[in-house]
């Protein structure tokens, strides 16, 4: 953690800016003020879901890194529901979220089937499917669902009454509650149910799980479906909570950041809720940092990636420090 901030500060200093000022701008932008805190919590909800998506699959030893594509597939199908049934308010919203999650899950399950039946490495296949999903979005938003008169490939906005409400006196959306509840549900699933036990067993030792009678092929597909469903729901949050339409770019790599969220939380679903908030602070604050100090906002994302790498060194650091003591 501190290592990441340290390296981030070094990069900021190396391009001739004041790191403490930049980091101050980052945190005050993300946590201070009416809009900053709201955007941080709303983005936090999205990152919690992509993080949980990573937790579910990684716990089973399946490296689903296609959250980005699954997120976009979920956003696309949910916006189609919103256009098809604009009138019935909350029911449309529920339907859109459900369809978004299911399609995201099915898209991910495709990679699960490829892994279970054809031994296709899921890291490569999910990345390939990310590119396919983005091209699909670009086609739909520039063709069948193109917003008339727009020069960009984007869909028209959803109806006003379908935009997510906020808690009174704030810009915080109820998505954060859904995300936290899902975090607890995933914790329950992984720690307290037979399915969760089998998934974690596969993550520990795939062969052993197979020999003790776990139906691994089915569980791989199930884990991928759950994981993709969470990512698809994250896409719905983005469409109905912030972008209000679909185009290539509604997610600023939030699917990929989910990997960092899960790894920082050591694959613990409840801790993921907290680490998602940290990544949200980095992302939202990064934009403020760029506006205030001119430090490129990607620095925040570089820090996120460095966090992942620092996590790797952690066991070693513990070993070295305990040897000194």
């Amino acid at each position, binding site marked *: 953690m501190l290592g990441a901030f340290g390296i981030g500060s070094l990069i900021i200093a190396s391009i001739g800016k004041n790191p403490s000022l930049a980091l101050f701008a980052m945190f005050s932008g993300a946590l201070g003020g009416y809009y900053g805190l709201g955007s941080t919590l709303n983005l936090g909800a999205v990152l919690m879901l992509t993080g949980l998506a990573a937790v579910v699959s990684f716990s089973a030893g399946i490296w689903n890194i296609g959250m980005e594509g699954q997120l976009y597939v979920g956003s696309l199908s949910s916006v189609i529901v919103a256009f098809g049934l604009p009138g019935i308010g909350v029911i449309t919203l529920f339907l859109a979220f459900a369809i978004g999650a299911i399609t995201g899950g099915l898209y991910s399950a495709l990679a699960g089937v490829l892994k279970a039946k054809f031994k296709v490495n899921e890291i*490569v*296949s999910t990345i390939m499917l990310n590119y396919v999903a983005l091209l699909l979005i670009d086609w739909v938003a520039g063709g069948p669902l193109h917003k008339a008169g727009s020069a960009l490939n984007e869909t028209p906005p959803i109806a006003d009454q379908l935009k997510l409400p906020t808690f009174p006196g704030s810009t915080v959306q109820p998505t954060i509650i859904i995300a936290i509840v899902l975090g607890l549900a995933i914790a329950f699933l992984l720690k307290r149910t037979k399915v969760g036990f089998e998934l974690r067993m596969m993550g520990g030792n795939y062969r052993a799980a197979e020999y003790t009678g776990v139906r691994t092929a089915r569980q791989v597909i199930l884990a991928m479906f759950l994981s993709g469903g969470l990512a698809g729901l994250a896409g719905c949050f983005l469409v109905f909570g912030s972008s209000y339409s679909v185009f290539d770019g509604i997610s600023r790599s939030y699917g990929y950041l989910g990997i*960092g969220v899960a790894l920082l939380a050591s694959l613990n679903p409840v801790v993921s809720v907290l680490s998602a908030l940290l990544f949200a602070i980095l992302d939202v604050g990064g934009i403020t940092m760029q506006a205030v100090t001119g430090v490129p906002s990607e620095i925040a994302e570089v820090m996120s990636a460095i966090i992942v*790498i620092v996590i790797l060194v952690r066991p070693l650091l513990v070993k070295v420090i305990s040897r000194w003591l």
Partner: protein
Amino acid sequence: MNLILLVSASLVSATTLIYPALGETFTELSGVYNIGLEGIMLISASTSFVATAYSGSVIAGLVIGIVTGMLAGFIQGIFAVNFRADQIVFGLGIILLGPFLSPVLKDTFALTTNQVPTFPLLDATNLPYPLSVLLNQNALTFASIGLVFLLWYALFKTKFGLAIRAVGEDPRVAASVGINVGRARYLCSILGSAIAAVGGVFVVLGLTGSWAGDVTAGRGFIAIAMVRVGLYRPVPILIACLLFGFVDAAQLTLQVSASGFPHQFLQMAPYLMGIVALIISGRFKVFGGPASLGRPYEKEQR
């Protein structure tokens, strides 16, 4: 559509894959999993872009790109050998780092320019017709073909190659006959990443000549698929890359000629091909990779 032009374009597209695929083969045969290939390519592409933008020299770009790759390989070696880290998690870190770090590097050090000079093409106009088009390539394309055979010889016909493959299959046996497992894995990480980096350099200094964000566009992952389908043997990998290059060049040509058809579906072809390649290699698995791939070597274990 001109077939000779198409074949010439396929060679260019294949070059972007041959380097990372060879680099991955080198690294993986020693038992180190390099899933972060794409990130290494992208970061090297950005550093070579910056170096060329400053110096105006493509050679400087190539050298800096290779040095970047070697550095990445060295860090990978530290994690794989000394820290005995989970190589997949390390790779994920590199995959994440690539798309975030490369725009920072580019925007910080070469903010004003988006164009760089590219490697000069061989002037083959004096040669008879098909050759004059086919050989109108830059040095990196020719070198990639040469490298295929060089690596085939080094890895499969020399004692050095045997030692490396032994380390990848069973490091304990390799160590018992006096091979330094750690050193071999370091070497393969560094050299493999350096070779892969040339693929990233080729994308900017041989193909696009400009910077447009995610320039490598998943080619690192497609290269991993090529390694699997080519069964870790340089020559079959070359054939897979050439076939792939042909499909890629064909879809690019079709984008221009079939203007009514949505280009997005044509652009999907390379990625779907990558998945198909993996399905084929999973179905007809003759050699699934080194036995100790991805497993850290614990010296004290007996």
